[in-house]
């Protein structure tokens, strides 16, 4: 029997968290607060962080059962863990999510779920191969854009033609000089599959600023604001105009007298603009007539996107932010990034997951990973 009205231990989801800094600690607190979750392990490459989180878990349960790990592979090797949540920097997501799937664990992965285009299909394939519940991590897709989503799905916007997203900045290469590695930080593990670079506090700061003072600013670890906030905005936009279940076939790069913007075209002809001149964020271009109305999908269970994930772990249904839908949003972000990097339009083969007849763009579909990490 469960204590104090909690589900019996056999009915709780046994969880661990990997990457428990700013965002991860918030995720952990939500899962830890649920009666139907038993939190058993924390993992972070910063000793002080994992010890703080370990104490938090043990304090919650008033015991000493929570284990703390520096290396996520030790978490994966535990057969008693049903699910993990991952909030590491983005360059680690794919490796950890796929390893969790191959070890039979369900995953809640923070956004942006992928660092490269190739990673997306690999993550979807792993989830499907092993029948895992894998949820992306943008709660804003459903919760922040309800107004425009409801307007589109109710038919009030008529025949929706396009939507615009204003988001940035782009990520940059980091050349900051090295500083002494703080005690308790496993810098080699923090870098993981990313190219070696000397430690600098701005490289590994989990600050939400994208101004060169956080890992979110730098290409090796993130897609900058284009993926960090793009995961939310493009996710909301593709949900609103109902193209979240598909990927664009083309990204059109515009350069009008130095004013650069871009447009993704989906197979059904709908357009997703980025920084379209004169348009507001999430501004929809529709028609005057009333369009057909359809019910808006929503979360399962209780407790927002976290509750949706836990409910789906129990029911084995696909979560609201199923990895395939999350990857589609991330793909939009990456397609835009590559078009801006090459400063030209690109055609994307959604089946082959390659750019069409474009060797140069195809080189940017993925990056070589630093040994010993492979994908």
């Amino acid at each position, binding site marked *: 029997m469960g204590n104090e009205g909690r589900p019996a231990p056999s009915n709780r989801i046994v969880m661990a968290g990997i990457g428990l800094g700013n965002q991860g600690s918030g995720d952990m607190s939500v899962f830890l607060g649920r009666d139907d979750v038993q939190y058993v392990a924390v993992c972070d490459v910063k000793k002080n962080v994992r010890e703080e989180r370990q104490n938090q878990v043990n304090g919650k349960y008033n015991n000493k059962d929570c284990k703390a790990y520096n290396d996520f592979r030790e978490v994966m090797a535990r057969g008693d863990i049903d699910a993990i949540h991952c909030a590491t920097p983005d360059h680690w997501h794919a490796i950890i999510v796929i390893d969790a799937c191959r070890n039979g664990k369900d995953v809640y992965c923070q956004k942006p779920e992928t660092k490269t285009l190739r990673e997306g299909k690999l993550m979807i394939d792993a989830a499907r191969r092993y029948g895992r519940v894998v949820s992306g991590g943008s709660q804003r897709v459903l919760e922040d854009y309800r107004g425009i989503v409801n307007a589109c799905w109710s038919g009030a916007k008529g025949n929706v033609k396009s939507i615009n997203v204003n988001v940035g900045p782009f990520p940059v290469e980091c050349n900051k000089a090295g500083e002494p590695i703080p005690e308790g930080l496993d810098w080699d593990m923090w870098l993981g599959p990313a190219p070696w670079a000397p430690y600098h506090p701005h490289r590994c700061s989990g600050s939400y600023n994208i101004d060169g003072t956080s890992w979110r600013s730098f290409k090796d670890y993130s897609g900058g604001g284009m993926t960090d906030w793009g995961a939310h905005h493009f996710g909301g936009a593709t949900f609103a105009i109902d193209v979240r279940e598909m990927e664009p076939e083309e990204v059109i790069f515009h350069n009008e007298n130095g004013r650069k913007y871009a447009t993704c075209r989906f197979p059904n002809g709908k357009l997703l603009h980025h920084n379209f001149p004169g348009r507001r964020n999430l501004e929809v271009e529709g028609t005057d007539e009333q369009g057909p109305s359809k019910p808006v999908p929503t979360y399962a269970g209780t407790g927002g996107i976290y509750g949706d994930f836990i409910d789906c772990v129990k029911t084995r249904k696909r979560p609201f932010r199923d990895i395939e839908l999350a990857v589609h949003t991330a793909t939009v972000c990456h397609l835009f990034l590559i078009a801006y990097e090459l400063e030209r339009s690109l055609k994307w083969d959604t089946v082959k997951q390659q750019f069409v007849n474009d060797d140069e763009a195809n080189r940017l579909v993925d*990056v070589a990973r630093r*040994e010993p990490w492979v994908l």
Partner: protein
Amino acid sequence: MTHNKTTKMTLAFGAAAAVAAQAVAQTDSPLDNAFNALQTYDWGADRNLLNPIDQAVIATQTDSAARKTLEKRLVDALAGGLSRSAQDYVCRRLRVIGTAQSVDALATLLPAEETSHIARFALERIADEKAGQALRDALPKVNAKLKAGVIGSLGVRRDAKSVDTIAKFLDDADTMTAQAAAHSLGLIGTPAAAKALSQFAAKAPAAMAIPVADARLLCAEQLLADGNKAEAMALYKELQGDSQPSHVRVAAMRGLVSTGAKK
């Protein structure tokens, strides 16, 4: 001959006047200035100094001759001795514009711990067979720590020629190298890769059970995608044994069903 090589020769001969003239010649365009900056570029230097090279990458997209010249300058810079940060910068550009012309210079970086990965950063993405050959040739030369990376790059390239070589690392004492070998064979996904994985599976140590099962599932998917249905079915059937964890057996069953749907 590049500006930099010219500079080095004139310095060697101690011709001060010639050096001065060359220095002037090297500052006649933003691109030349950027290549000069590359010579002393290091961690902490202003990244914007190199922007003209970035811009040249874009500007030469439709000019193959200019692109080839730009690539040559980057290769020469790499061969001329640069800081780790500058090598890192050059390899990132060669990831985008590198061709067979770049392979030899990149290959020389593969055996060194400091540069092996950043060399692969470019080599892995260069489609030319010469890049694959360089990676295969490097395997016996790189130390234990670097092997997993080279094997991983060969896997991503689906380098069928490396199957026999990679298979030898399945029982490597270094677990990450052995896992990289299994994963890469799965990615390569040829009948020969499937055979190597199946032969090893029977004697795989416990630490390799999940990586090998995963690699065989990957391999089966690739075989099926390439039209090798019988080989894919055989792999899936092998993975349905009681010795496999339940999620692997379920994955194999799902895969087997998918072979029925595949013509």
